[in-house]
């Protein structure tokens, strides 16, 4: 149960600052402690995509490598590392963006975010009882508010303390994903 004991926390990943901002609030909400060695109760993985709009026809192969292939390879490595850090019954939390819903002029990020969602769903089936959930924030930094980070921390706390929540995509975007073009029943 959350709050019954200290939960240990580790943040790894892209270094966008988003996961760190959430983790900073997490330690305020509950008795989370960032410690130097595992196994950790919660490992947060920053998989936030770079916000950079480029028309599909203007994308170079180098753009695609930097915005899609390299982050996807890095994510795979980070999740492998997170599994080891979390221990056999830990909780993984991917922090990503809503690019997978389909952003024009952001095709590489849409692909990279799509691979993150797929991996986030698969992990709980691959390695039970490890649980993995996903916090989804807007890809555009200007659309992220302090309130979203507060909410992200509350949700992170909830999934970290749960033994049953797994494979959830938790949108923290002020209901933007309910824009009709983004509604996704899967």
């Amino acid at each position, binding site marked *: 149960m959350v709050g019954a004991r200290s939960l240990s926390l580790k943040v790894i990943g892209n270094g966008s600052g988003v996961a760190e901002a959430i983790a900073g609030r997490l330690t305020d909400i509950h008795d989370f402690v960032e410690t130097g060695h595992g196994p950790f109760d919660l490992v947060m993985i920053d998989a936030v995509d770079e916000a950079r709009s480029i028309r599909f026809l203007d994308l170079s192969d180098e753009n695609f490598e930097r915005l899609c292939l390299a982050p*996807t*390879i890095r994510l795979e490595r980070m999740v*492998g590392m997170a599994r080891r850090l979390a221990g056999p019954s830990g909780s993984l939390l991917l922090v990503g963006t809503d690019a*997978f819903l389909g952003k024009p002029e952001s095709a590489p990020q849409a692909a990279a975010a799509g*691979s993150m969602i797929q991996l986030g769903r698969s992990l709980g089936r691959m390695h039970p009882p490890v649980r993995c959930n996903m916090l989804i924030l807007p890809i555009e930094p200007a659309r992220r508010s302090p309130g979203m980070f507060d909410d992200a921390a509350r949700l992170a706390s909830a999934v970290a303390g749960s033994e049953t929540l797994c494979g959830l995509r938790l949108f923290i975007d002020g209901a933007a994903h309910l824009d009709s073009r983004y509604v996704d029943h899967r």
Partner: protein
Amino acid sequence: MEDGWHVVAADRDSDALDALARSSPGSAPLSTEVMDVTDRCAVAAVLDRIGTLDLLVNNAGIAGKRCAIGTISEVEFRDVLRVNLLGIFIASQEAVRRMGSGGAIVNIASASYLVSPNVPHYGMTKGAVVGLTRSMALEFRRRGISVNAVGPGAIDTTMQSALSDEQRAHLARIYSDGPMPPAVIAAAVRYLASPEGRRARGQMLLVDEGTSLGIDLW
């Protein structure tokens, strides 16, 4: 071909292309091109030879190694990413540059875009294809080019040859008659390429006999 399409089949495996040509009627409007979809120059050259292009089906894909997350080498993962993802990017970009209004692109993803505990790296690329499809569909909507995806379940192709006996038995149990014939996916592509199907944009058409709905739990 039955709908009057002139089909250009491209593959890096010339033997497979020869077999396809041999199995098709002599009068079939089919031509073949040996091509690596990750080679931009080769893709561009093939598309230049084709001339007018109305439909691109991004079908190239490899399953890659069956191993746990964090255990694959970067070289092996890159092989899967290049064929399954970079290939779609390159072919689509080169195709759209040559495609007029009213064209269509169909990306062959996989039902494993939902979840794939056994082949995680393959599944990651298929999840990526779905995101890519949505983004491309939005971007090309005003040009009148439709972009959609098909998500096949188990199809009777050479990719199935890597399965264990246990996995084959599982597929035989959850599908009505074992892995589905490729013609099932061709029919889905045919719909999305039709004038009616082109009204769909950015969609993933799952064709898996409902296995993603949990049939294996019965």
